[in-house]
Every structure is written in C-alpha cells, then in structure tokens.
C-alpha cells in the first residue's frame, strides 16, 4: 500500500494531490457533525440569502484583534435581501463551542463543534439559502450523502458488472447468452428514464434512510450493465491467453483463474471505468434530487442544494454562493478523473 502510494506520487503529482484532496473531502464529510458550525436544518429566519459572512481582524475603530471576529448583520432591504453590519458589538470566533447535542452516525454524541460565534450573530462561510440555513454546513452534510452514494453505488455496480461479465465471458455458451440478453434488456432503456421509472415504483413518502438506500440501489442497478458487457469482451480474449491455459493446466479451480489471472488483466480498463463512473453517481443523485425524487428537504445533498437554485434566475444573480454545490461536484469529478487515469498506469506492473 505504501509502495503503491509512492508509485502514484512518482508517476503523477497531480493525481497524488487528487488522492489526498479526495481523502480530505471524505474525511470532512464524515465528521460534518463536528466540523459544521450549524446543523443542516438550523434556520435563521431573519437572515435568508445572507451573503458569506465577513471575518474581521480590525474593528470600526481601527484596533487590531488577534482573534478574528464577525459583526451581527441586520436586514437592510427586505425585498432584495441586502444586509448591513451592526458595528456596535463584535462577536469573536470561538473554537470548540458547545451547542445542541448531535449524533455522529447514530453512535457517538457530540456537544462541541469545531467553531462558531455567539448568537444572534452568525458565521456563514458560504452564505445562507432561502430559509436562512448555512450553506457551508449543508455542503458538509450533503457531501456525506453525495460522496458515499457514489462509493457504495460504484462498489455494487462494479461487483455486479465484474461478476456477470466475468462469468459470461469465462464459461460462455448458454450462460453467456442468458446473462448478455439480460444485460441488453437493461441497456436498451435510456438510463435516465429507467432511473425515473424505478424510482416511481416506490412511494414518495419514504424515510430519508430508505430514500438513500433506494437511490444507491437504483443508481448501481443502472450502472453495471455497460461494465459487464465490456468485461465480458475482455474476458473472452484474455481466457485464450497462454497464461490462462497455463493456470488451467495447473488444475486451479475456475474461481481462482478468474480472480487471479483474468480479472487483474482487465484492470487497465476497469480501474479507469470505475473512477470515471463515480461522477455519474453524484450527478445521477443530483438529477433525481433536482426532480424532487432524490434526497428530500431538509436533508441536504449536493444535488438538492444545487437544484434549489436552478430555475430561479433571481437567486443565480443575487445569491451566487448557492452554486457552490455545483463547484464541489465539479472539483470532486475532476479529482476522481485525474486519480483514475493515474491509478490505471500505476497498477500496471509494466510501469514499475
């Protein structure tokens, strides 16, 4: 593992950076309960569409404060949602503030968050949405859903695709025919409509956990068909290679031949295919959320944060910070693509 990291570093610095970047993203999302200053559904009704809070070191008198601070803001124009700062009192930034108890993944409880300011001031690093909810906190919580859906979804569809494609290609004959016809049936449907109709089979009023699992299942059920098809083709050619014949001539069982001799030689394709398909899951979830079929409010995902902005031109103009969810998606996609490309080369022994 360490050697692999070193190879990745030597092979491509950008990809190595991407790996760490993604790890940080996953880490931050995982610990959103501690890192986010507000809970995702905490509303500041008097501060809708609040722009990102300014953090100051110098007060209105020009004095320097070693501890950064914010001013409370009051609404200036209730129609266009402009705010002005109230210079009468400073609210210093506090670390490890205590607040309402949150549960980290149902197991641990925490009362302290990484940072915050006293009420009634608020610290909104990325501004607030129409209900006055902190976008930064919602992005952290939303990353938890968007990033984990993509990982779990990819894992399921990759396993399905590899197993089906591998079995179909390796055993051939009637097994191949049955499996591939199945895959083709799945592939003839346009994936987006398939996604919608699968979602439509289930009631709308599901709990958030149920919706989450449902979306993972839907997305991974759609994604595996294409992979299976290509893996089958690769297995068909690889199984005729001399080293596979040699493995058979040693009397190895089929599963060992598939697992150790055939699958590793499909990696040049499949590793790239996996990392490139990760973005598809984030976008798929975003698309479902956009149509109101994905993760439901008040639960955040990058998709439904973004969807709340699309179709509202005023918001795009006046509160562009709501589009940060899109930038998060974009950045994660780029990093996954970079990493995937490099991983394919790094996992090939010929490049060592």
């Amino acid at each position, binding site marked *: 593992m360490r050697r692999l990291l070193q190879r990745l570093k030597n092979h491509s610095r950008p990809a190595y950076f991407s790996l760490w970047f993604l790890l940080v993203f996953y880490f931050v999302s995982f610990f959103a309960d501690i890192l986010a200053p507000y809970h995702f559904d905490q509303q500041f009704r008097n501060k809708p569409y609040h722009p990102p809070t300014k953090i100051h070191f110098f007060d209105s008198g020009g004095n320097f404060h070693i501890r950064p601070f914010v001013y409370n803001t009051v609404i200036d124009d209730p129609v266009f949602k402009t705010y002005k700062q109230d210079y009468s009192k400073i609210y210093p930034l506090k670390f490890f503030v205590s607040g309402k108890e949150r549960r980290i993944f149902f197991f641990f409880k925490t009362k302290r968050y990484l940072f915050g300011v006293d009420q009634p001031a608020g610290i909104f690093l990325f501004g607030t949405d129409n209900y006055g909810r902190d976008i930064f906190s919602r992005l952290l919580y939303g990353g938890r859903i968007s990033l984990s859906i993509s990982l779990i979804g990819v894992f399921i569809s990759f396993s399905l695709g590899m197993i089906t494609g591998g079995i179909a290609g390796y055993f051939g004959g009637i097994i191949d025919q049955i499996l591939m016809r199945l895959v083709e049936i799945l592939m003839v449907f346009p994936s987006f409509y398939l996604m919608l109709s699968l979602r439509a089979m289930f009631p709308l009023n599901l709990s958030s956990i149920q919706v989450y699992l449902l979306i993972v299942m839907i997305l991974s059920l759609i994604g595996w068909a294409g992979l299976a098809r290509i893996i089958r083709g690769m297995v068909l050619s690889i199984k005729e290679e001399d*080293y596979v*014949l040699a*493995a*058979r*001539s040693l009397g190895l069982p089929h599963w060992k031949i598939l697992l150790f001799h055939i699958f590793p030689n499909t990696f040049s394709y499949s590793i790239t295919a996996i990392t490139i398909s990760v973005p598809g899951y984030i976008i798929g979830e975003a698309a479902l959320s956009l149509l109101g079929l994905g993760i439901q409010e008040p639960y955040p995902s990058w998709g439904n944060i973004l969807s709340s902005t699309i179709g509202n031109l005023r918001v795009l103009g006046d509160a562009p910070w709501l589009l940060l969810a899109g930038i998060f998606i974009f950045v994660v996609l780029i990093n996954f693509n970079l990493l995937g490309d490099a991983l394919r080369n790094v996992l090939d022994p010929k490049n*060592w």
Partner: protein
Amino acid sequence: MEEILRCEKISKVFVVKDFLGINRRKVTALNNVSIRVNKGIDLGVVGESGSGKTTLAKVLLLLVRPDSGSVYYRNNDITGLGDSKLVFFRNKVRIIFQNPYKSLNPRSTIEKTLREAIPSRRVNPEMIETALTQTGLPSDYKNRYPHQMSGGERQRVAIARAIAGNPECVVADEPTGNLDATTEVNILKLLDGLRKNLGLTFVFITHNLKIVVDFCERIVVMYQGNIVEEGSVEQILKSPLHPYTKILWNPSSITSIREEKYKDFDGCVFLARCPYRKKICFEHHPVLKEKEKKHLVSCFLYEQEKMV
C-alpha cells in the same frame, strides 16, 4: 513397459467462420491421431507449422477437448472428466508453452505464479526457492514480474512452474521456439538435467529434428493433423520411410511445393507435395501401419506388395 499417457483416435476440427458466419471453413487440426507415452521414453513430435502439434499438446492435457477419441492417463479414460475432477491428473502431467512472453501472467510475481503450481496446501518460501534454483535462477527472482526478465529467464520460470508439482510427464511445446541459439542450448541442457534428476518423461514437440534426435527415443512425425510416421530415433534417422520425413531431413530436396491442382482430391494428405504419388494416392487415405518392428508409416509406397 509402464504407460503414462495415451490418446486414441483423436480428431479435432476447428470451424473458422467469417464475419457474418456465412462461410465456414473447416480446419482439421488432428485427424485420427493415436500416441502413447511410456515412462522413461521421451517422445518427440515433429512437424512443420500447422501440422497440429500444439493442438495435440493441448488435447493431451485436455486443455482443448477433442471432437472424438479418448485420452487415457494410466489406462483410465479421462476424456469426459470436468476440470474440477482432473486435478490429480493436472499435477502429474504438466505443460511448457512455446512462448514465454505469453505464458506468464504479467500481473503476478514469480512467487505467486510458482505458488499456484505447487499442489501442497502449505507452501513455504523454501519450496518456491527450490523450484527456482532447480531451473538455475537465483532465488531472489521470486519478487520479480515477468516483464523484468529476459525470454530465457521467463522460460526457466515456465519450466519451474511445470516441474513444481513433481509431475511424471511434461509436455514441452516448442520450449525453445522463441529463444536465440545460445539460450536454446542452455534450456535444452536444463531440461536434460531435470529429466535425469527428477525422472521425468518428456513429450517434446518441435519443428527442429536435430533437437529431437538428441533428446528423444521415439519420434512421431506429423503432417497436417495426421501421423505419417512413427519409430525409434535410429529408424527415423537411418531409414526414414515416408517421403515427408525424407524432406524433413533434407529440406532443400523439396521437389514439389503444395500445388493447387491437388487440393480437391480426398486422398493422402501429403499428395500435393509428394514426389512419388501414384494413382491410389488420389483416392484413398493411407493407414498408419507397422512396416518394420515398431516402425509405423502411413504411405502407399510400402503397401505395394499387398495391393498387387
């Protein structure tokens, strides 16, 4: 004489389809081939490219299933057995492939490759190192990948893999076909040493008659999927019977190349190139018959007496 491996009346036809599957062409790789491998008697299989030698090797190991005929291991018919029931046989008869650049998994270290070849459940590092040193490779090669080795070294690994299971018989399919002359000599020396030390019996498949003469005791000559002559080395060397064998000994003496006008006749396979063809050769296929003691040939030249 202890018989290890025997195949009887093996036939294998490959159907070659064109893109749409309309035109089908049949390629006869093996036609009614029977050979017998006795313990301690190395068998050489000689023939030019396309004579079905490699298919014969694969059929002997049941890596390719024959269309008809049977393979016997120690007098047990194993033709119909599935791969999972053949494990005992796989450990006793091993194969060395022709091209060491293709026969090693590029994604496995040498250690992993050899580990799979050793049938015992607990494989300790010494066993792998022994297998390597037996073939003249340093034991630290086990951490290497195939692409980090030369062709000769790879072939040694392939040999180490074949002998790791302690087999009785090794089918070597042109083991020096892709190697240069000096490496070839070294590999042949290695195989010779292994044969003596481990008591192996080789089935040596090659197009190079000189190797076979040095290496084997019995020779089978194949032409287009048929056995045309079979005999001991002295017999084949001193008194070759079949016209094809004579050509093999002296390739420059080829009198006629394969001619198109003979291709529609369903007679002897060697018809098109035979300098001694007769009327009967156009109509009938000669049967492999014993001419002298344990010297078999399939040619009408030697059936004259009976025919008349």
